[in-house]
């Protein structure tokens, strides 16, 4: 059930099968991302893969002394490129792997192009998704729906991705979906269709309890992607943006050249692997501890590491240290930038109110706090808008809803129109009318007691009190209590036992907060393994883009490129 490992195994197998000798890896745009998530350059170099080329690159030289490993998605374009390539082969021998099911006719046309008999292998290796963490995958699709329905192109891509995931994990699941979402049902049917069509592929050893695929829709929980995050991975994504494990730091003031873009991958960065789920304060202290230890060794330098700036200076002054814990200097930069943004944008205060809006039901206090923050000049328009969005979502039908007043405040604050329009768009996207379940008020007695107790105990950490709705859904699912009238099975058969292997897929994108929830569920629940996936992994900015792309807000058609520029960073 480890998706990173599944993809990595595929890649390793390809390289292994090609035998010794210099190799070039021929990929397309998407597979480049897929490979780069699981392999580092130095790792792959050791396997004699020295060059990485794009199949669509025109500038490739004939190098007959290289073996070519082609890892491509089975698209029409790629097949055409490959046909051209085989007609005039640039490399001595070709090992061709498609990341998904390829049609027989495509195989035939490729075969006919291979007049020089350079192809040694044609296989399907189902690594057709981005493996982010062992339990988290993404398809990097932004804007999967038009209105409430699928964009057909994205539906087929999502179906491919999801079936590839099932194949790579060797799971032939039962499917449940969220009834309130038409898109979820549609996707469930498409996946089922593929399973039926490629039944030979899906014939795996039967497990006692069949695996379960649960398909959800982002609409059901629009709150989670709107919150500021405080655990490392989620926070980096929220404030800086993670794109295939890469972080663009070029806009960080005074950044050095080699840190313009950094890679955060738990696969080869031990510090990151150990800290990605820790909260911000702890990471800071971890880095500080490390450097203080290092400093002890060098008694001549007596200066204290009080601030992150000190740490940065320190790291720069010690090339030795830089190399020793190479990754740490990267993390110092990242954490430094995070802390700069936190103070610049007054995020602690903002986040506290966000959490209150998300977790508590005290309308008047919430309203008061939002109003207060809207007056604060340090709060950016982006954060102001998201506070109002959260308020609008939570108190949508509250008797004394004062959204219009808040919208006025936004206008007075000078928040641009695109954000103000997004408020209603978000409500349209994830409002009460759409939701199949109640996000805010707990229904069953246990949950009520829990919340009551929580209220008594006080919260340990105000910034991380929010629990994604997914947690409750999965908790019920694990306990066999997930209601069938809300999450029906596709087809007649139902699961009698409690599920063991669970794949959750969220149409419209998952979040890192949800990934953390799943991580913790995996760690705390015996015998249960959960993999989370989404059409993409959202931060607030990308979520708002998703909302926009769905085009739900009829009046905001013209503002198509909202938020794309510098929205989250000002």
């Amino acid at each position, binding site marked *: 059930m480890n998706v990173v490992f599944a993809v990595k195994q595929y890649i390793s*197998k390809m390289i292994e099968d090609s035998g010794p000798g210099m190799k070039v890896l021929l990929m397309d745009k998407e597979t480049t991302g897929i490979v780069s998530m699981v392999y580092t350059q130095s790792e792959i170099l050791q396997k004699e893969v020295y060059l990485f080329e794009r199949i669509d690159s025109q500038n490739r030289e004939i190098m007959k002394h290289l073996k070519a490993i082609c890892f491509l998605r089975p698209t029409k374009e790629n097949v055409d490129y490959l046909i051209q390539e085989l007609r005039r082969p640039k490399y001595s021998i070709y090992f061709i792997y498609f990341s998904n099911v390829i049609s027989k006719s495509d195989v035939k046309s490729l075969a006919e192009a291979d*007049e020089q008999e350079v192809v040694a292998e044609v296989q399907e290796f189902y690594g057709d998704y981005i493996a982010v963490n062992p339990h988290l995958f993404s398809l990097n699709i932004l804007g999967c729906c038009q209105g409430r329905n699928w964009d057909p192109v994205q539906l087929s891509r999502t179906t491919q991705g999801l079936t590839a995931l099932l194949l790579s994990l060797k799971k032939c699941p039962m499917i449940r979906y969220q009834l309130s979402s038409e898109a979820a049902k549609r996707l469930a049917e498409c996946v089922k269709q593929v399973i039926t069509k490629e039944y030979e592929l899906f014939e795996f050893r039967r497990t006692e309890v069949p695996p379960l695929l649960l398909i959800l829709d982002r609409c059901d929980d629009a709150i989670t992607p709107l919150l500021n995050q405080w655990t490392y991975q989620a926070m980096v994504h929220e404030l800086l943006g993670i794109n295939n494990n890469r972080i663009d730091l070029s806009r960080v003031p005074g950044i050095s050249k080699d840190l313009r873009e950094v890679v955060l991958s738990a696969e080869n960065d031990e510090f990151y692997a*150990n800290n990605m789920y820790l909260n911000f304060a702890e990471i800071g202290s971890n880095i500080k501890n490390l450097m203080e230890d290092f400093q002890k*060794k060098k008694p001549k330098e007596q200066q204290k590491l009080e601030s992150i700036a000190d740490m940065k200076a320190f790291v720069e002054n010690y090339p030795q240290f830089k190399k020793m814990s190479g990754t740490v200097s990267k993390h110092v930069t990242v954490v430094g930038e995070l802390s700069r943004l936190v103070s610049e944008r007054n995020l602690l205060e903002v986040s506290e109110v966000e959490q209150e809006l998300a977790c508590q039901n005290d309308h008047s206090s919430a309203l008061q706090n939002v109003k207060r923050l809207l007056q604060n000049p340090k709060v950016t328009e982006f954060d102001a808008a998201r506070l109002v969005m959260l308020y609008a979502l939570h108190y949508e039908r509250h008797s004394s809803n004062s959204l219009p007043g808040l919208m006025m405040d936004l206008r007075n604050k000078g928040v641009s129109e695109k954000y103000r329009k997004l408020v209603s768009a978000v409500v349209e996207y994830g409002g009460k009318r759409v939701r199949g379940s109640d996000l805010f008020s707990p229904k069953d007695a246990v949950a009520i007691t829990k919340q009551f107790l929580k209220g008594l105990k006080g919260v340990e950490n105000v910034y991380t009190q929010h629990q994604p709705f997914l*947690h409750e859904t999965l908790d019920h699912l694990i306990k066999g209590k997930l209601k069938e009238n809300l999450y029906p099975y596709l087809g007649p058969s139902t699961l009698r036992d409690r599920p063991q292997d669970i794949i959750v897929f969220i149409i419209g994108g998952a979040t890192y907060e949800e990934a953390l929830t799943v991580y913790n569920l995996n*760690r705390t629940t015996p015998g249960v393994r959960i993999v989370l996936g989404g059409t993409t992994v959202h931060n607030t900015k990308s979520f708002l883009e998703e909302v926009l792309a769905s085009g739900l807000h009829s009046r905001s058609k013209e503002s198509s490129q909202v938020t794309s520029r510098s929205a989250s960073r000002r």
Partner: protein
Amino acid sequence: MASLDDPGEVREGFLCPLCLKNLQSFYQLQSHYEEEHSGEDRDVKGQIKSLVQKAKKAKNRLLKREGDDRVESGTQGYESFSYGGVDPYMWEPQELGAVRSHLSDFKKHRAARIDHYVVEVNKLIIRLEKLTAFDRTNTESAKIRAIEKSVVPWVNDQDVPFCPDCGNKFSIRTRRHHCRLCGSIMCKKCMELISLPFANKLTSASKDSLSTHTSPSQSPNSVHGSRRGSISSVSSVSSVLDEKDDDRIRCCTHCKDTLLKREQQIDEKEHTPDIVKLYEKLRLCMEKVDQKAPEYIKMAASLNAGETTYSLEHAGDLRVEVQKVYELIDALSKKILTLGLNQDPPPHPNTLRLQKMIRYSATLFVQEKLLGLMSLPTREQFEELKKKRKQEMERKRILERQAVLESQRRLEERRSDLASHAANGEAKAAGRTDEVRTLQENLRQLQDEYDQQQTEKAIELSRRQAEEEDLQREQLQMLCEREWEREREQFRAASLHTRTRSLDFREIRPFQLEPGREPRTHLACALDLGFSSIQSSTAVETPSPLSALEPVRVWSGPPALGQESFPQNTVLQQNELASLNPFDEEDASSPTAEGTSSPPAAEPSFGPSARSLKEYNPFEEEEEAVAGNPFTNPDSPAPNPFDEEDEHPHQRPSSPPVPGNPFEGATCTNPFEMDSDSGPEGEEPIEEELLLQQIDNIKAYIFDAKQCGRLDEVEVLTENLRELKRTLAKQKGGTD
């Protein structure tokens, strides 16, 4: 992942991974690393480790903080299964995901296509061969044309009004040309020519590949290819118009294309670029390193631990060898890096990138592996290490031995317990003896190995001693006899009470001691024995040639209770040896026993094996008897019975180290040593006891010496005696 597309800046050369210092060769890097970072790197690792630990701890703390459901989670590291769940990173390994091969399908389609293609190519080549199979230059063009036409039927001129390639209408100006290979028609512009050498290359290659003999007509063709001037004069009008290309063959672009592809294939088959050759060498070297380095590391680790499994020289050679391979790798990868850099058309950027990447990976390889090569100890260091290791091993062996003897001791304890029971309750004795026997059997097994070693040493030692002693013994025999006789009477009387006669002296011991004390003393004695066995083994293990001297040393040391008992016990041990294996060790061990000791109780029970003991024991016995110790001790006003028990041994071992010459130096000086050693240290009452006893002993020696008429010895002994007395007096004064 460091970006796949742009590898970024790759730093070259031998960079120290810690301080990024660029060093010129890997020798320098290595020595640099050893000098600068050998101490450091442990710290670095330690730091990283501690960081990780901190991170884990912190993570757990965080998890605790996060919501009610997770409170109980994460009190331990991820490996912990205590709360049931598993970190996704720790999920069990999974098999390779599903795969599906299209190769057979692909091959089927390709085969159909390839057949067609191959037939095409072969047809062209066969025709080409026919066209070049005659001497073109010396043949009339009309005849050539006829031959050409016979090879492939030409398409009718009338059928093709336009050039199929460029679409121009054929006219008197744009004449039709026939492809000699397929017979098709094209205009002049679209016509291609095949030179004879090119044709030859193709035909000969395909012949080679078919491994048929080359046609003899071919080579002359290419040789005579240049004689075209003379032919042009005789060539026909048409051939003049054809611009005298009679040594070339006309063909269409299509056929030319196919042939060119074919040529390319042939070329590639034969040609291996330089980079491939170098790269192959490089890989060979890397394999060699992968093979040799672990071997070397094993050796170096072993040598550094002071083991002698491998020779230092051999390891050194291997090190040099591995280093040479590294150097080679470095040189080769550098060569690859600079390949073609000076060529006129500079190589394609991709070629350069390939070269750079190979160099980079070689550097990574060297850096990673080279620094793993630990250094060897120098010769002197190695000697030291060896010594250390030896000591270590010795200690380990002793510990092991002790463990064995410990268990042995336990048995002994039980046995002496039993023995005492037997002594006390005579009625039960019969039943118990069986038990005792079983125990004894066990003990015997346990002791087997110990015996072996012990006896071997003892044999040697005792042989030497025995020779020396022989004379003296004879002299003493007479004297002893009377005393011994008396003893024997005593014990016979005692042994009448029991049926354990066949057992060794130990069982009888209690009887001997019985008059003195209650059973508790026996127990104590048995305990002492346990100690002794441990320590005696130490003594035996130590390589000092005179193991018999050991007890003396200990004895003269601080008189702690346990230690004091030790000499006696060694002695007992050895006696036991003799008694346990009475038949095979009779001669060998009993002299040792004589040499080291003679518990007064032993002789009667020894039976046949005690022969030499009998001879010897009386001697000691007599001494003691003269001194009056064995029998006075129990009655002496010692503070506690244990002390008494301990006193016994002291007198006895005093002789063992030099059994052959009890009247010479060793014995004489020992008491003295003891005095000076124990005087300042210790417990006064015991010291006094010791002194007194020693004095008694010496008195006995003096007496003996006088008897034998060795006056000089008497003098020395008296001197010692005086010394002892003085110390005693001093002590008394001190305590008072």
